[in-house]
């Protein structure tokens, strides 16, 4: 590296930039900044702009925002028809609400299943702790798509869950689980479980064992200790884990597409169909914009607020 920083071209470049008023510092800031501006921020403006257009049969399939009027002046062709339709058509409204509902239920179950796992791992001695942690992470590194696929075979009419329940005599006739909202929720809980466990684990493992001992020492039974000490202290982990499950679950497309039925409405799926099947790009863009403001923005604001509160502590 020495060779590089002391080579002539390097120094000349640095000096040249200095003459132009760029310091190395500015350059270092500029590289990631520019990339993210162009490929992350600007797309949202494009998205917003196209959501105001109309679909037309052309390439690209949307009307331009500006047009030359016959007298040569610029005309703005923006219209809010897409948003009006979003508001008036109950399909979209129901899709937003149903997405939130499904994501909420899934998050709750992910928490109920994930918390004991995280807590158990956090209180395990080494090397069991590392092994269990790796076992939690392992499915996450395998394909998301294939993990959803695994449940297709599992929940089928002739699938293993039904076979098992029939075999043990819990049910008489196979349950219909595939292509239901239930299957979608199972799929979400399953695929996002590591995102729930890891922040919870990170939080629980940082708690000093002495807190639990102090609580027991002062006369609290294990259950009371859990309710009055462990649970309140793990609130940051619970919030982080729930965020990591809830937000992506709202926009989920693959899981409802593979496990859901025709009546499983989720907004990510509506957006996808609007774009790929109906080829209505402006409508898809409008769906995305509303999703952004209705769902993502408040949750991100909440996350930010929590972060700041955490820093002030």
């Amino acid at each position, binding site marked *: 590296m*020495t060779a590089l*920083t002391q080579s002539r071209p390097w120094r000349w470049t640095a000096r040249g930039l200095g003459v132009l008023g760029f310091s*190395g*510092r500015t350059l*270092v*800031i500029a590289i*990631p*900044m520019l*990339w*993210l*501006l162009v*490929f992350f*921020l600007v797309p949202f403006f*494009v*998205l917003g702009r196209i959501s105001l257009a109309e679909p037309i049969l052309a390439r*690209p399939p949307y009307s331009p925002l500006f047009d030359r009027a016959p007298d040569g002046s610029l005309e703005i062709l923006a219209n809010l028809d897409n948003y009006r339709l979003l508001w008036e058509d109950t399909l979209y409204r129901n899709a937003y609400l149903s997405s939130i509902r499904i994501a909420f239920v899934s998050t709750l179950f992910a928490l109920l*299943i994930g918390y*004991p*796992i995280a807590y*158990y791992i956090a*209180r395990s001695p080494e090397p069991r702790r*590392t*092994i*269990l942690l*790796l*076992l939690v*992470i*392992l*499915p996450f*590194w*395998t*394909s*998301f*798509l*294939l993990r959803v*696929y*695994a*449940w297709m*075979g*599992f929940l089928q009419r*002739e699938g*293993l869950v039904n076979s098992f329940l029939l075999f043990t005599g819990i049910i008489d006739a196979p349950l219909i689980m595939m292509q239901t909202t239930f299957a979608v929720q199972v799929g979400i809980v*399953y695929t996002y479980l590591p995102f729930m466990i890891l922040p919870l684990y990170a939080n629980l493992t940082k708690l000093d064992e002495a807190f639990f001992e102090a609580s027991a020492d002062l006369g609290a039974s*294990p259950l009371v200790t859990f309710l009055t000490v462990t649970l309140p202290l793990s609130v940051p982990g619970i919030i982080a884990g729930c*965020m*990591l499950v809830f937000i992506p679950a709202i*926009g*989920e*497309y*693959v899981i409802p597409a*593979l496990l859901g039925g025709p009546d499983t409405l989720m907004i*990510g799926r509506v*957006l*996808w169909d609007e774009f*790929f099947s109906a080829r209505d*790009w402006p409508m*898809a863009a409008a769906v*995305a914009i509303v999703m952004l403001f209705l769902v*993502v923005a408040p949750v991100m604001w909440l*996350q930010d607020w929590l972060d700041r509160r955490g820093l002030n502590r």
Partner: protein
Amino acid sequence: MKRGWTLPILALLGFVFLYAPIVALVVFSFNESRLVTVWAGFSTRWYVALFNDRQILQAAWISLQVAVASATLATVFGVLAAFVLARLGRFRGRLLLTGMTTAPLVMPEVITGLSLLLLFVAMEQVLGWPGGRGMGTIIIAHTTFCLAFVAVIAQSRLRDMDESLEEAARDLGAGPVRVFFDITLPVIAPAIVAGWLLAFTLSLDDLVIASFVSGPGASTLPMVVFSKVRLGVSPDVNALATIIIAVVALSIATAGVILYRQNKRRAQGR
């Protein structure tokens, strides 16, 4: 302290939930029958079928190229962004950069995919670039959303790192660039490797964003698999899943053993 049985049992059930579908997936990849639910004897025919499927092999090759390229780019930009945020103090646009490196973490993929596609289309109209969509646009899209993950990992490592190491190097006469390459990078190297691996996996795994920004002739592996499984379960996908799981499990076990040994050595050194 004595502990009850409730917690271990709940945790065990949780692990059963995590692994039962995976085990079933693997077992039925060796099934003779086409039905993925009825056992009809051991067979490796689906593996043979998989390796004769030109479409899958080609898609896998494209996915690998995309994943290596975008993981590498995402690591470069992500580490730079993390360094800027963790070490350069206040500057104009700091809040903006913070937002842009964390927002992709929670952004629904459909939104990221759609907005990037619309950007590419608009850019093509205005600038004439990129001419058409394919691997190039997928790499740009994956770099952007993986960047955030790398940045988060690198940033937390930078925050944990003892800043006096860098100050000592400055004190001994190293310029800021030297310090970055001589001290900062080697110290956060494990986080960079982890970040690259994560970005690689995320890229390899992505279906939604790739579906939006890809063009004809550039189908990634998840896209091909998705179009297959949409029609129902098929045992060659089980075979593919088994191979992926085996590779991942082997790598994780290796990493786990290395990590465990390191920790043990560190614990003994104390």
